């Protein structure tokens, strides 16, 4: 049942990393938006949904290369539009209203896409260069014999790592990031200093949507393309945010990988793997309610 050979362990590690990387990408956008704007975005799964359907349509019509460029760009604009057109009017309303309106938006988007594309899975063809397998034993000499892994899933992992690195670089190495981080800690003080925090937070919302776009382009072929996918991904991603600590980017990455690994390493037992995420959540809630890397007193 539980295979302890080095090959099996390695494969489970890779699979865990791959599952986790999608969670990380979704959770990263969620936690960014929550940390800056204090908004719990129930429509974030729907943004992912828009991304995968856009990616399928564009890559079928004009090739994957264009989808790769266009989808994140469109999602960025969509995020800005969503913040300006809807979310900004909810900053001063109760959190429940924010949740309700984003939930309503999620339903509308999901039903709209269902109307346009049908309720069934739309096939997402992987581009030529992403097809095939990687000979893992050539890269990792400690593996025994012949070990292969789908190339596309490996690409997904690499894309996630690059995206996470880019977001961290943006937040920690640029002035823009410095202002955002300051705004996450004390938005009022920043306003007193004369910084226009609202415009920057709007961009953060766009960035969050853009990350969902990147996740959609690369995750679509793995998660399938159907109207239910958005919500299916949103729930574990929420838990990733909760486990990692709300508003903590590092926490989201850590928890995402943790959840991915937990699912991968329990995959041999269907009963355990379906509830492992919730078990971990319960344990974290009981032992450390603010999440693994959640700052004390922030959004408690």
């Amino acid at each position: 049942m539980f295979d302890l050979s080095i090959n099996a362990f390695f494969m489970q590690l890779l699979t865990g990393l791959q599952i986790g990387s999608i969670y990380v990408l979704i959770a990263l956008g969620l936690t960014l938006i929550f940390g800056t704007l204090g908004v719990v975005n129930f429509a974030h799964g729907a943004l992912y949904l828009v991304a995968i359907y856009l990616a399928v349509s564009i890559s079928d019509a004009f090739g994957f290369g264009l989808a790769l460029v266009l989808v994140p760009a469109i999602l960025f604009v969509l995020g800005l539009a969503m913040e300006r057109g809807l979310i900004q009017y909810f900053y001063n309303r109760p959190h429940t209203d924010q949740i309700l309106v984003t939930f309503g938006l999620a339903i509308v988007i999901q039903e709209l896409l269902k109307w346009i594309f049908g309720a069934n899975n739309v096939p997402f063809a992987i581009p030529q260069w992403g097809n095939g397998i990687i000979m893992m034993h050539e890269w990792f000499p400690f593996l025994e014999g012949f070990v292969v892994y789908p190339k596309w899933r490996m690409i997904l992992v690499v894309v996630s790592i690059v995206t996470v690195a880019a977001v961290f670089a943006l937040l920690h190495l640029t002035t823009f990031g410095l202002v955002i981080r300051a705004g996450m800690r004390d938005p009022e003080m920043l306003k007193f200093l004369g910084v226009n925090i609202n415009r920057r937070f709007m961009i953060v919302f766009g960035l969050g949507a853009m990350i969902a776009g990147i996740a959609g382009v690369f995750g679509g072929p793995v998660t399938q393309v159907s109207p239910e996918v958005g919500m299916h991904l949103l729930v574990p991603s929420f838990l990733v945010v909760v486990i990692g600590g709300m508003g903590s980017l590092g926490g989201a990455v850590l928890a995402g990988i943790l959840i991915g690994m937990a699912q991968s390493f329990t995959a041999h037992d269907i009963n355990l793997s379906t509830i492992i995420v919730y078990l971990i959540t319960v344990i974290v809630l009981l032992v450390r309610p603010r999440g693994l890397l959640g700052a004390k007193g922030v959004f408690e």
Partner: protein
Amino acid sequence: MNTQQSFFERNRAVIIFAIIALLMPLWFPLIGGYQGLDTKIMIMCILVVGFDLLLGYTGYLSFGHAAFFGIAAYTTGIMLKDFSGQVIPAIVVAVVLSTLVSVVIGLLTLKRTGIYFSILTLAFAEMFHAMAMAMLQEWTGGENGLTGMMTPMLGSIKMQGAVVFYFSAIIAIVMFYLAKRIERSPVGLMMRAIKCNQTRLEYTGINARKYKLLTFIISAFYAAIAGALMVVYEPFVGHEFLGWHQSGEFVLMSVIGGVGTLVGPMLGAGFMLYFENVLSADIGEHWLLFLGIIFMAVVIFMPGGFMEAISRLQARFNNK
């Protein structure tokens, strides 16, 4: 408190609701409703009244009430299938079990503030959904759902058609009456205080968590009764009963009708089921899209739902 008020004055809303509900088989077909849908509306009325105590009065938005609805439904189904066709023991066992589960979920989810609460209730409901689909498949029937129950019986009366309707309607009236009593009680005051300013309430030395948990359990109790009745009404349990769609429907109904009023969510439940089953004949399968748009419009422009619309209209008439 004005003790001079007569029973009828104090319970005007309940009496009006009772009259409308009990006469439903007479007037509902006139507007295109059919037998069975009225029963479903009564059952949903029970659920949303309890849900409103949590959402409208205490201010806690649960996205996981499908869990209590679904657990009660499955338990009732299993009781009717393997134990006996008698509905009373089935409903009692189902409601007790589901309410016990709510104690555990409540203790876990209420550890944190409102936002966490919404996310975590959603997550736990999804956990039960996943469990019904996988490890509990032998009992729940997994993807196919639970079927093959005995004909539900109340004593020697077959629970069918009009009998189920009046059974549900009477329970709905009683549950609405109880909710009204809770609304007026000290617990009801605590609920509103929690919604208003929880921190300040705690500074007065009151254990807010106790009241939050109590409200949560009461609302789960209402959901459990509705879930059990649903199976008596139609002997089938699908995994959708536990899904987030189901929880979402409760939220939609309550908000469209107007939370914090008890009556509003019932209006919303009636409207939504009517919309889904009667009006949707013209829209077809995309009814949820239109309902979603209505819902968003309500949240954005009229957070008080139908009840706010009614009181605005009233105000306009009074001014003229």
